[in-house]
């Protein structure tokens, strides 16, 4: 009898350990596994609205961007609330690596060509690094003919530069925030204006659903702008993502579509009701045709 109990005990012990051990083995393997800790999707697009976001283009991706800024909504029904006037920027961004993007674009306003290099120094991680840090340097050259033939404009006169550091964090699945100290340098300025402009950009995103997000993009010009002429650009809008497209629909007091232009040449003011409708359309193409070799 005693013997039987022992047998039974040892048998049940064996099966018990056994059943447990398998579960444990999977758990053990899971705990040993290094997971991809990188945080992605802080913003839907590589721009908050006007300014660069901490989001990068993936390696091998090409982003064709069409931007439109219309006239002031306050013009009323006669101008279809500003839609009769439009300026436009066509942009081509290339994801060279996951951390390096090169871009070039041209804006109808002042016939300006701009180019930039954007590099991600630090990427936010789920555990560990709490922020992403991105740097951008860019140049812009306007190519319109000077209406005054006696004063030809040199390349130097026409060019402007900007550089910015973007610090941002995806706080939750829905909410992301970034701050971007920016320096803009322009060679051609109005009398009494300063060539170097410092600005602080603030960009925020709040997801409304999986594919729709509410975004705000604000740049506080910290020095140098004659405030009777210039105001701080504030844009408020929604991002709608549909597969390879991102539509960024917004209202803004800024017309400019590159850093030099929207930071230093925003003259309309929200408080006067001078805001405009605009949109960014981003279409992403995959240039890289690599096969998954590993399988």
């Amino acid at each position, binding site marked *: 009898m005693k*013997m039987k109990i*022992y*047998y039974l005990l*040892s*048998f049940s*012990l*064996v099966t018990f*350990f*056994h*059943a447990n*051990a*398998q*579960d444990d*083995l*999977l758990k053990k*393997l*899971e705990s*040993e*596994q290094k*997971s*991809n800790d990188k945080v*992605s*999707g802080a913003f839907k697009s590589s721009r908050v609205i006007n300014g660069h976001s901490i989001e990068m*283009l*993936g*390696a*091998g*991706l090409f982003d064709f961007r069409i931007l439109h800024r219309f006239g002031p909504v306050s013009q009323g029904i006669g101008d279809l609330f500003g839609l009769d006037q439009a300026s436009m920027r066509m942009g081509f961004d290339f*994801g060279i690596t*996951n951390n390096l993007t090169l871009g070039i674009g041209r804006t109808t306003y002042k016939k300006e060509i701009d180019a930039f290099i954007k590099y991600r120094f630090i990427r936010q991680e789920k555990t560990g690094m709490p922020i992403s840090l991105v740097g951008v340097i860019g140049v812009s050259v306007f190519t319109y003919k000077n209406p005054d033939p006696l004063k030809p404009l040199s390349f130097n006169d026409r060019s402007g530069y900007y550089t910015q550091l973007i610090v941002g964090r995806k706080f939750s*699945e829905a909410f992301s925030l970034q701050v971007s100290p920016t320096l803009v340098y322009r060679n051609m300025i109005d009398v009494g204006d300063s060539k170097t402009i410092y600005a602080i950009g603030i960009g925020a995103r709040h997801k409304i659903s*999986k*594919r729709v997000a509410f975004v705000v993009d604000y740049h506080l010009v910290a020095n140098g702008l004659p405030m009777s002429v210039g105001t701080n650009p504030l844009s408020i809008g929604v991002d709608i*993502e*549909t*597969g*390879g497209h991102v539509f960024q629909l917004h209202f803004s007091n800024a017309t400019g579509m590159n850093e030099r232009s929207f930071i230093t040449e925003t003259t309309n003011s929200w408080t006067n009701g001078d805001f405009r409708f605009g949109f960014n359309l981003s279409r*992403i193409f*995959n240039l*890289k*045709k*690599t*096969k*998954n070799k*590993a*399988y």
Partner: protein
Amino acid sequence: MKKILLLILGMQALHLVAQERFFCRDAAIKFTSKTSFENIEAVNNQGLFVIDLKTGKVECSVLLKSFNFSNALMQEHFNENYVESAKYPRAYFKGDIQSIPTISLDKNADYTLAIKGIMQLHGQLKEITTTANLHIKDSKLTSDCVFDILLEEYAINVPKLVKDKIADRITISTKAIYQIQKTGL
């Protein structure tokens, strides 16, 4: 004396059982979506598989973030919009081999096994019945398995705009090379 004997017996039993257990840390899991517009494919080489030839228990666990797409944007959308990997980081399969044949590592052979179990993906549980192939070659155990899942069964909604490009039925194929679990338990 009897107790010691029992203990030895018991330990041997444990040992034997342990010998039947195999695991794999780098199982390849591929999924394919085929439509007339485009084929989408992603591979994960970090699947965790545990298989017990004694009890017939099969367990798999895979990190969804580790699926690699050739298109970085698709990979982001997969994680952000479809499987929501921040909320549901892993997919699981836990099931049983329906009738376990006697398998000896000493003999090269191929087995076809019926497997029934529960797949857990995107917070949803769904029963899966499939067949898997088990191969023994030079004392190495490998397996491969192909089965289909329906996206709607896992509450993965594809918006109308891209419905033509993403198949309702996704084919999942796996390959694994196993190691024997070495420790006594």
